[in-house]
């Protein structure tokens, strides 16, 4: 329905189906306008990211330490019990009557209040000691990644996006924007856009140094799991997971799929791209490999998790640099020693360094 359409004035009398059709069309037109504005560069590419960052600076911290501190603040505020019972009253003389009673039983109430306050303060003190101990314990046993300097967030084993044709094919019919998360660089997003796929990125980074203002890339500065929790049914036309999913460990991976699945429509495609565990140890940056809090899962584990969460018939593709293949090509020896060495090298190097698992959300599979 074109804006200002002369017919439009008479459509107030549409029936329910007609109305729904008009609203669906308006939504499509809004989507098209947004896509056009983004691609034309008329919207600053980092506008939404800047707004997100500005508000997240004012938001409460996350993590259990913060929540414990907040809960303790409440305990501290409530620890002192007030002996002064309110005497306000809506009834005539009520206030005077209450004040008399309060004065009369004051000695009695104060006795209990003193004991209650003393008990509450002792409990609060004990809780503070426990919280401090807990924090120390967590710091000592933390597997949290020490902060990495900018530029170390390499998120794949190679720059070769060998899986991009698979992604383009999987997402070409997406009915809504495809969510890519989390992206450490912008190559994926740029390649999808260049292939005509409507996609946006999710990037868990406090800095904006890596943004691509003017490129029309839509990047949301948010944790992947946090973003997944805010999605509503049908909001994404597909999901491409890469980057930090290699570090998050099996429990978080399971939680991520469990959060995404209910909000993805039937038939929506989920794609996971990751390095293999073998390739991880040979990452270009050894600091990143050492300091990352986790290691990539085997592709079979993703297949298992996807099936568990109702994603039907996962397909596994392997690609990227293949040192074992290179070694095979370069090795020409045929002696038993050469063959034994070849076997050892192949088992050490594994197959290709990367894999992609693709599955579609099934119908009523849970």
């Amino acid at each position: 329905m074109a804006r200002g359409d002369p017919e439009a004035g008479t459509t107030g009398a549409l029936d329910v189906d007609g109305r729904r059709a008009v609203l669906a069309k308006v939504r499509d037109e809004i989507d098209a306008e947004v896509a056009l504005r983004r691609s034309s560069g008329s919207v600053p590419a980092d506008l939404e990211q800047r707004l997100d960052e500005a508000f997240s600076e004012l938001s409460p911290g996350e993590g259990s330490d913060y929540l414990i501190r907040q809960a303790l603040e409440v305990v501290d505020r409530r620890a002192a019990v007030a002996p002064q019972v309110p005497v306000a009253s809506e009834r005539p003389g009520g206030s005077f009557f209450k004040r008399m009673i309060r004065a009369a039983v004051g000695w009695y109430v104060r006795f209990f209040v003193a004991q209650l306050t003393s008990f509450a303060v002792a409990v609060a003190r004990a809780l503070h000691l426990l919280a401090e101990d807990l924090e120390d314990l967590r710091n000592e046993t933390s597997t949290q990644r020490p902060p990495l300097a900018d530029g170390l967030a390499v998120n794949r084993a190679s720059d070769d996006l060998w899986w991009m044709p698979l992604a383009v094919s999987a997402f070409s019919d997406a009915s809504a924007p495809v969510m890519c998360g989390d992206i450490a660089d912008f190559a994926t997003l740029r390649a999808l856009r260049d292939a005509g796929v409507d996609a946006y990125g999710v990037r868990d980074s406090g800095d904006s140094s890596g943004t691509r203002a003017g490129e029309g890339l839509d990047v949301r500065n948010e944790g992947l799991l946090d973003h997944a929790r805010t999605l509503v049914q049908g909001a994404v036309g597909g999901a491409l997971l890469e980057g930090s999913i290699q570090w998050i460990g099996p429990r978080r991976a399971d939680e991520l799929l469990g959060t995404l699945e209910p909000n993805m429509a039937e038939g929506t495609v989920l794609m996971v791209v990751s390095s293999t565990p073998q390739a991880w140890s040979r990452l270009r940056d050894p600091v990143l490999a050492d300091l990352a809090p986790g290691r990539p899962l085997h592709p079979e584990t993703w297949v298992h998790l996807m099936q568990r969460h109702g994603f039907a018939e996962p397909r596994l593709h392997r690609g990227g640099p293949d040192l074992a293949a290179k070694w095979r090509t370069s090795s020409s020896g045929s002696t038993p020693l050469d063959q034994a060495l070849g076997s050892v090298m192949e088992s050490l190097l594994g197959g290709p360094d990367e894999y992609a698992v693709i599955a579609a959300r099934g119908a009523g599979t849970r």
Partner: protein
Amino acid sequence: MSPPKRIDQVIPTLASRDAIGRHTMQVRDLLREMGFASDIYYANASADVLDEGRHIEKLGDADPDGRWLLYQMSIGSPAAMVFARRPEPKLVDYHNITPVELIAPWDPEVGEELRIGRAQMRHLAPLTAFAMADSAYNEAELKAVGYKVTAVAPLLIDMDEFAGRADRGTSRRLEGEREKGGKDILFVGKVAPHKAQHDLLKALAAYRGLYDPAARLRLVGGPISETYSWALDRFAEDIGLTDAVDLPGSVSHAELIAYYQAADVFVCLSDHEGFCVPLVEAMFHGLPVVAFGAAAVPDTVGDAGLVLDSKEPIRVAAAIDRVVGDDGLRSILRTAAAERVASMSLERSRSKFAEVVNSAIDAVESERPSGVQSVTYRS
């Protein structure tokens, strides 16, 4: 089991300016008209409605044969535990409990009440003979935690309460600001993290940047979290919108009407709503609605507003521009809103609610016949 002679209600807090409080009083009147004796028992009440019910301590002796109890469930409360221990047959009317994670980081005390509320909801499931909810979304939550026999029963809203005269002073002030140019975007609701007023600010920033540099945002409603209100003020300041955002707090009924009358569009970007009466109120006042389709919002709006599946600021800004600038679309939305409001009229809602009460009685009397596990009434 014989039908009850009386159905009394238990509610955590009875308040006159609260949709659930007003609903509870309407339900009491309806039950009385249906021939049941009915009173309200509360754990707390606002001063102006103290006489509309009694304190929960006065529930009195158990009467499992003649009396049933209906619990209005929306937050954690000692009232739920009193209700749980009563021997009378139990009904629950569920209005949703805000997810803890949306509130707790900002306000741990309210977060704790919500956490307790969710625990009480699960605790009451096996004890409850029949549970109703004011939206299909809420009914699904009941089923998910184990309520066996459920139904959708409408919230009883007296639309006449939405009508009235606008406060003249407020109307004059708002009109004066409108004369300077720029559209007025309105949202009504408690200033709370799950209502996501910060996302409305983001949308306003995008809308002013792309379409209407003079646009204003009016956020009517009292705060429930000091931390969030502070963050909202600072956020407006940080992104240079202080002069474009009006935060009048809680306002009188006449002032609220002035705000509805002076607005161009009602925008709701809440992350969670159990029903959202202000959406209906906006439709009543003929305001076009743009809303993010979270939780029960799509149930409430139906096809009478533009429901979005994303609240990216640029998308919301484009939707606002479309709604305020497209006469044809506004005409469609106005007609649909009038129909939607009519479908929620007190008369119709009372009739549907009475049907649900009767089916609850049938279901409980026949002790949950097999094959009938869910009774859903939809408008």
